[in-house]
């Protein structure tokens, strides 16, 4: 199947190095300490952060740092065919763990001992790149909750089909069987915190694809910073500063 036509356009009309349209909104769940909606094309994800709050399970309480927990779940209607088991299945458990470990790397947990930070992510519409959208939404929600972090974490995926590296795969491109590289970075520190790849890839091609995904992450980071700045300006004006 042709994923990149001879004119260089993909199935949805994008160029190979073009990301899908990003859209983010902060403070959408009034009950949560921090929340955000993040959209990458048709993938729509909502994240809510509760914390720091009291540890639910006393035995897991840590005296020198905060406990970070994460739960990833997909809505029944998020995928093409209705899902029977949206959480508790292996994929959701794996992604929950991946998001938790990624965010744990950047949260300054030693500042909040004996407490717990809960990150909940719900996928409302899935069209490829849900892992990345979840991490981006979690970053925004943590920032909205005012939780101290060393840097924001942004994530993006890239693949390699028809001999071309492609940025930000959607569901059709992802399920084509080609390699899928997901990268999560701390943009200011320029460090990689998340790196996952499946399927086979040549070494040199891998470097190109990873470089492309990192560029995508940086683009997401600048968008996220804009959104956060805009949000702070609104808060400022509401307080009459």
């Amino acid at each position, binding site marked *: 199947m042709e994923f990149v036509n001879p004119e260089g356009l993909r199935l949805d009309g994008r160029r190979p190095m073009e990301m899908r349209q990003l859209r983010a909104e902060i403070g*959408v769940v009034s009950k*949560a300490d921090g929340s955000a909606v993040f959209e990458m094309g048709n993938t729509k994800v909502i994240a809510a952060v509760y914390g720091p709050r009291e540890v*639910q399970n006393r035995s897991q309480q840590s005296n020198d740092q905060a406990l970070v927990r994460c739960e990833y779940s997909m809505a029944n*209607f998020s995928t093409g065919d209705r899902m029977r088991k949206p959480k508790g299945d292996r994929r959701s458990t794996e992604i929950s763990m991946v998001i938790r470990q990624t965010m744990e790397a950047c949260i300054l947990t030693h500042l909040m001992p004996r407490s717990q930070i809960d990150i909940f992510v719900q996928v409302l519409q899935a069209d490829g790149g849900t892992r990345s959208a979840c991490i981006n939404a979690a970053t925004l929600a943590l920032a909205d909750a005012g939780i101290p972090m060393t840097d924001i974490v942004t994530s993006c995926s890239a693949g390699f089909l028809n001999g071309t590296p492609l940025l930000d795969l959607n569901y059709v491109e992802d399920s084509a069987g080609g390699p899928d590289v997901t990268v999560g970075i701390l943009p200011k520190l320029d460090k990689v915190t998340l790196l996952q790849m499946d399927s086979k890839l040549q070494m040199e091609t891998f470097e190109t694809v990873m470089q492309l995904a990192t560029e995508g992450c940086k683009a997401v980071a600048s968008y996220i910073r804009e959104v956060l700045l805009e949000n702070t300006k609104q808060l400022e004006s509401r307080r009459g500063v």
Partner: protein
Amino acid sequence: MAAASGTNDLSSEMELDAFRRLFPLSFHERHLLESIRPDGRPLGRARDTSLSLGAVASANGSALAKIGCTTMLAAIKLEVMTPTVEAPDEGCIAIDFHMPPICSPLIRPGRPAEVAPVISKQLSDTILSSGTIDLKELCLVSGKAAWMAYLDIYCLDADGALFDAALLSAVAAFSHLQIPVVSLNDDGRIVLVSEENGGSMKEKEPVNKEKIKLKMNSQPFSLTCILHKNYILADPISEEESIMETYLTVVLDTNYQLVSLNKPGGPGLASTSSIQDCIALAQKRVKELQQILSEAISDMEVD
């Protein structure tokens, strides 16, 4: 009374937020004496309600309903199934209500909300018994194929009056539902008629060319009221629900017929006059909600 005077003494020295946290009942009762609630609403008024149809592009019908801060996302997905032997001409509706942990600080993973299955059952009973959807409309080929409509409602923000918001989003999702055009192919299977192979004559004629939108008989709308001493508070927020635990839910349809009445116990007792007052408040609310729903539908059609 000693406790009340104790709080009165402290209240002059304490800050408002602290007083609200430590003595929530006195805080709310002081407002009720002035016939007003902490957010400035009169006792019988519901919060600002908004509806938006088609929130989920991948579903056959969807709606996002917000009553104040309470947010519900409802989506309907259709699948083909074989109808039962007892009802070969009827489809089926499966209603499920979810409260994911994002909606409230009280829900933790591993400790699901107690109210979620209760509301799920209430919604299911109300929608099916109100007769707003005629199941015969969901039939494709009598005895062989019918639509199974899976309605999933997700609570994205739980701030009181969950049943009202869920019912509103469900009704709105059904009014937005577009049944896809399908045809019966040679193997006796139902297939979707997509734009690409609509031109090929290999498949038989579409089974349901005409039925694209569901026809809904009078739609049900609800109002939850809290009963506390002699006061009736319409459309409670979650703080009011947790301190004054007695509530009464009235469901009326657009013909102002009573569809369902639910007062699941609670420390407050209701006299017949207070029940009638609640029904009167519900009647006013039905008018408002009908207006909001028809505006949302006409907004969709303009697009």
